[in-house]
């Protein structure tokens, strides 16, 4: 009897569990994976967005590369657009592999789009480690690019934004969580890479600098490289230095940047920036004798200092802070109104840049 009762209970439990289930079970081939998301402004109405989702179409054959499909929708908000796109596809839309978010340049130049940035951060299924970038001429065009080397849709984008594939000092990749961090943290501003869509490939060598709401400034490739140095994110690069008629190229393998905000009493505050570069000689237009190497080092120091200072001033003029000087100031001062103080100090603060260049090796040729 007891034994029968036990089984009865067990059956009830099993039955109730089976009744409750059938929720959330959806096979991987019934899901439509979004690999990248593009957001543009609607051309006809600037209040509306054009949201494009790039789906990976998986096929069984290993010979042909995976296809993709882009579906776009105009709507007043992200969620509306996604809801409308759902009606156009046969499978469940799965955002969990959306590893690249491309925003068009027009969109980021416009104010009042914070809702979009927060939409990404708020959704649980969008990875916080997806990359955010600015697309030129439009996000949709960037999504449409199909490089030859790519077997999985958008994989080329992932590889070039991440550090797994190509490593370049001109790419300044940005994760979604870091973008959100910079959008809200007082004293440090967002920086997003700009992707230029070309025929069959991408060109990623510029960055756009944001204030707390929209993009203000874009930096050309060389300045991007310097900014990368200052943020200590990338160390391999090549620098062209001209001295007299000779031009040499230094291939850096170690770049170290330190900065310190000095606020002497009674005197004007300044920011001391120390850059130290170690590298090899890679290319020269003329033969460079060994004794002259130190002269080139001096020349390189001078030119790098100048470049660094120029870009720092340029950013300062635009009242932006991608490096986080403001945060550094806040973190070193114990008073509560340090942020207000810094807002007064920053527009007028002076930069003192010191560079130390060391050419360690001249390659296989003396």
């Amino acid at each position, binding site marked *: 009897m007891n034994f029968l009762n036990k089984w009865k209970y067990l059956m009830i439990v099993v039955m109730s569990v089976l009744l*409750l289930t059938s929720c959330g079970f959806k096979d991987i081939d019934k899901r439509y994976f979004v690999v990248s998301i593009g957001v543009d402004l609607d051309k006809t109405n600037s209040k509306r967005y054009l949201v494009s989702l790039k789906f990976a179409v998986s096929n069984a054959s290993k010979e042909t590369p995976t296809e993709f499909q882009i579906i776009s929708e105009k709507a007043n908000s992200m969620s509306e657009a996604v809801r409308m796109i759902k009606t156009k596809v046969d499978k469940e839309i799965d955002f969990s592999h959306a590893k690249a978010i491309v925003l068009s340049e027009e969109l980021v130049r416009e104010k009042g789009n914070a809702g979009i940035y927060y939409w990404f951060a708020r959704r649980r299924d969008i990875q916080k480690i997806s990359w955010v970038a600015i697309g030129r001429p439009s996000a949709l065009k960037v999504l449409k690019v199909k490089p030859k080397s790519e077997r999985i849709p958008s994989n080329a984008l992932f590889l070039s934004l991440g550090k*797994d594939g190509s490593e370049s000092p001109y790419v300044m990749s940005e994760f979604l*969580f870091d973008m*959100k961090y910079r959008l809200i943290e007082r004293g440090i501003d967002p920086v997003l890479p700009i992707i230029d869509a070309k025929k069959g490939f991408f060109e990623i060598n510029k960055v756009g600098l944001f204030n707390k709401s929209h993009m203000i400034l874009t930096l050309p490739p060389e300045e991007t490289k310097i900014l990368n140095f200052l943020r200590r994110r990338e160390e391999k690069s090549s620098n062209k230095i001209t001295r007299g008629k000779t031009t040499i190229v230094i291939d850096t393998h170690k770049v170290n940047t330190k900065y310190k905000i000095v606020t002497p009493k009674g005197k004007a505050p300044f920011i001391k920036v120390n850059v130290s570069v170690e590298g090899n000689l890679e290319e020269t237009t003329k033969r460079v004798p060994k004794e002259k190497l130190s002269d080139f080092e001096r020349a390189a120091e001078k030119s790098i200092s100048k470049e660094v200072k120029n870009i720092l001033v340029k950013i300062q003029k635009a009242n932006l802070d991608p490096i986080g000087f403001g945060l550094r100031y*806040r973190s070193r001062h114990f008073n509560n109104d340090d942020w207000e103080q810094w807002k007064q100090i920053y527009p007028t603060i002076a930069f003192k840049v010191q560079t130390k260049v060391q050419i360690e090796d001249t390659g296989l040729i003396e």
Partner: protein
Amino acid sequence: MNRYFLYLVLLNMLINVIIFVPKILIEYRYDGAVMGVLIAIPIGIALNYLFSTTLTKFPQQGLPEIISLLKHHWFGVVHLVGIQLVWFTAGLITLISFIDILTRFINPEMPKLLLLTIFLAALFLIIQMPTDRVMYLLEIILFLNTPLIAFIIFKAFSNEYLSWDSMLEVGTHIWAWPSLKAIAAATYCFSGYTNLIIFNRVIKGKLKLWNFFIITVLGVFNLFTTFFIPIGFHGSDGAQELLYPWITTADSLRLVYSPIERVIFLFLMFYMSISLMSISIHWHVALELLKGTFRGKVNMKKNWIVLSFFGVFSVIGVIYLNALLLNKITVYWLIGRLGFELLVVCIFFFWARRRAA
């Protein structure tokens, strides 16, 4: 067998991520959380020391056995009834909040009650085991999970996106007047020792001083990690927007070479077992204390009545408490818990001293 004592303390240190401790600390980051944490450390260690040294006077005995030495039964019964409630709610809060996390991050379309069934099944199996077996299970689970959690923490510390400046910025608010809520939340990391009330049964031998030394080091590191890592990733201003700072932080980590790229899933998988163990430990204590209150033989029927009460309360909790409400309740629960803990430790300390004299 002093390692068992460390396990109990370590478990609470790990579980604080689930029970809103980082959320509360980050909420008061400019208003006294830093000082609160600093104050909580000595309080936590002192309570640890007092309670465990008191209990070593009763080797291998849990509270029910100790109470049975007393002449006044009613005193014991009153004492026990209050304590069980605290332990039960401790487990309940962890349970509800972890089920919320699971539905949010892993199974968004699954009804919470379904998730609860599997939790309850596992819990009922574990809490009815003898105390030493619960301890063995805890040991195995900690052995499997702690190295990997430590690896995740290491990855977090070595991440280039971790902003030390943001962490220092919060550190500069050290002189803000300490907030009671922050102290209560921070002391939770140390309060694993209270489980000794039952688990003293399996502790053999005296606790040595190095135990407390390790607890101090671990506690300081743990509080620093819980509090500051989310700030380092999401900013001194941004971290407070997050409902579960640590889960989002885990989602901000990326393992480039691992087949599982997103750390959040590893993190949640490890925490499934850790939180299951934490709830089991708390409920096991509650169950054993209840058995002590019944006195005499505990038959299967009484046992199942108690278990079904546990079940019913957790069903009610899961249905009526959402994360935001639970967060509010937890804040006051943590304060209440701190007061209760102080009370229990003091009563116990003086009572044991008088008895020894």
